[in-house]
């Protein structure tokens, strides 16, 4: 089934994937719970699930240098879209996956997208995953995104996940779970900006099951106005492993941030570290940028932009 994309749709797509028009290679674009367009490639197969709404993406062993796009856009209000996307990535792959969801809601009714993404990463494969969440529209209806990400990493695999939510999402509960086999490495980067009365909760549970497995969790967030953020990252070391959790938050206005980084060692050679820091923008940073000719507001924006990179 093909659905035409409006300028609003194209803008949402560009916000979350930096794509203008249809991508090359394998992709699946979903709008308001329906398929817009799909392409499989010689090495990447995308099939509709038979049990749940969603797709299975199978990447053949040895696939290298390919990118898969699976963006979702929601422009209908009152819609609750739940989708299951499961990736089966073969051994010895090197691929990039671009996901994300953009909501445009001009109504008083809520729009919600809950994406449940699972990744089965084969031995010695490298995966780079980028997920951007974005909301826009003048309506009072909530823009809700509740993503669940499950990662199962086989021996020697590497995965870097960058999960970004920079504006406009009224409410989000993010659940990220990972299991790491021997010699695998996961880098989880989460960047969040909430404003107005928005609410964001991020739960993470990373189980380091195999020897010499490594996880690095980097969370950077900015909470503005009256927004509230809660972080709950938990790393469990069940073998000789390395885990590092770093939560940094900038707080502004009447916002509230709660960070509860947890580490749990169940092996005597598990090396786990956590750091958490919450604070307002340092006055000396603003003053320095003002001495370089920026106004106070410009300085603040510059500091936030760089912090969230």
């Amino acid at each position, binding site marked *: 089934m093909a659905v035409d994309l409006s300028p609003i749709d194209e803008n949402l797509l560009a916000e979350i994937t930096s794509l203008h028009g249809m991508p090359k290679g394998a992709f699946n674009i979903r709008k308001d719970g329906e398929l817009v367009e799909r392409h499989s490639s010689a090495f990447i197969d995308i099939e509709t699930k038979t049990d749940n709404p969603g797709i299975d993406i199978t990447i053949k062993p040895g696939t290298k240098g390919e990118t898969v796009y699976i963006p979702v856009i929601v422009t209908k209000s009152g819609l609750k879209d739940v989708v299951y996307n499961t990736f089966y990535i073969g051994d010895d792959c090197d691929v990039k996956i671009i996901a994300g969801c953009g909501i445009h809601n001009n109504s008083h009714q809520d729009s919600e997208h809950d994406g449940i993404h699972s990744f089965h990463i084969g031995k010695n494969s490298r995966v780079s995953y980028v997920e951007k969440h974005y909301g826009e529209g003048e309506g009072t209806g909530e823009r809700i995104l509740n993503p669940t990400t499950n990662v199962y990493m086989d021996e020697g695999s590497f995965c870097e996940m960058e999960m970004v939510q920079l504006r406009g999402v009224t409410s989000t509960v993010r659940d990220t779970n990972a299991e790491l086999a021997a010699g695998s490495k996961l880098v989880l980067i989460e960047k969040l900006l909430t404003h107005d009365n928005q609410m964001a909760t991020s739960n993470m549970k990373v189980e380091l099951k195999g020897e010499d497995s490594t996880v690095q969790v980097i969370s*950077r967030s900015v909470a503005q106005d009256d927004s509230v953020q809660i972080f709950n990252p938990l790393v469990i070391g069940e073998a000789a492993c390395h885990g590092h959790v770093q939560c*940094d938050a900038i707080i502004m206005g009447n916002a509230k941030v709660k960070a509860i980084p947890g580490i749990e060692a169940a092996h005597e050679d598990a090396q786990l570290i956590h750091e958490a820091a919450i604070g307002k923008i*340092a006055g*000396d*940073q603003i*003053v*320095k*940028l*003002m*001495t*370089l*000719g*920026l*106004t*106070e507001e410009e300085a603040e924006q*510059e*500091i936030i932009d*760089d*912090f*969230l*990179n």
Partner: protein
Amino acid sequence: MLELRNIVFDVPVQENARETKRIIDNLSLTIPDDRFTVITGPNGGGKSTLAKLIMGIEKPTSGQIIFNGQDITDLSITERANLGIGYGFQQPARFKGMKVKKLLDIAAGKKLPMLACNEYLAKVGLCSAAYLTREVDKSLSGGEVKRIEIATILARDPKLAIYDEPEAGIDLWSFDRLTETFRDIHEARDGRSIVIISHQERIIQLADEIVLLKDGRVERTGSPAELMPQLGFVSKGVPGCRLSEPTELHLTEIPTTC
């Protein structure tokens, strides 16, 4: 030209206290164009406060600050920066996520070509290949961040540059390079003025004029020839103690740039 007229700066002795302490006491000073001025004096004498008053980081209790004929006493930091005043902090701020290149671009007010960045960093003894993509965060040492701070002022190229103890935290080798840089700027004689707050003899020697600040007042002003003997730099060490003689160092033989 910068004119400070009868500047007074009082601060409360404690937060919310009515009783105040005078940091700058009816200070008047003129810094002409094309001049290298070093402000020196004992700790707590008001040197950094004076620099902050010029930049607008602090506002005087009374008095006037005139820059090139314009009264800037009530202008903001940004407005003063845009009029051509620059300030190198004694303890520079760090920025998570901001790359050295970005900070130099902001300072210059434009995207700088690589060659220009190389030049600014080389002038403070840093190799740009190793630093441009680094973040100005805790991963940099105190000396590195200080040198980058000075490079931002070089990139900004203000009409009046104020450096607050630029030597603090900088190793001897880089300090040597830095002294050369200050000398070069000064020798260019292109109408720009440099004000350096310093205790370092080698920086003081470069000055056209030394201002000795004590208890918030200008105690004396004069050329290095006039003032150096009075500043106590001439007699080194403790009389009769050979161990206190400084070691001979040939700093110029140690490469400081890439």
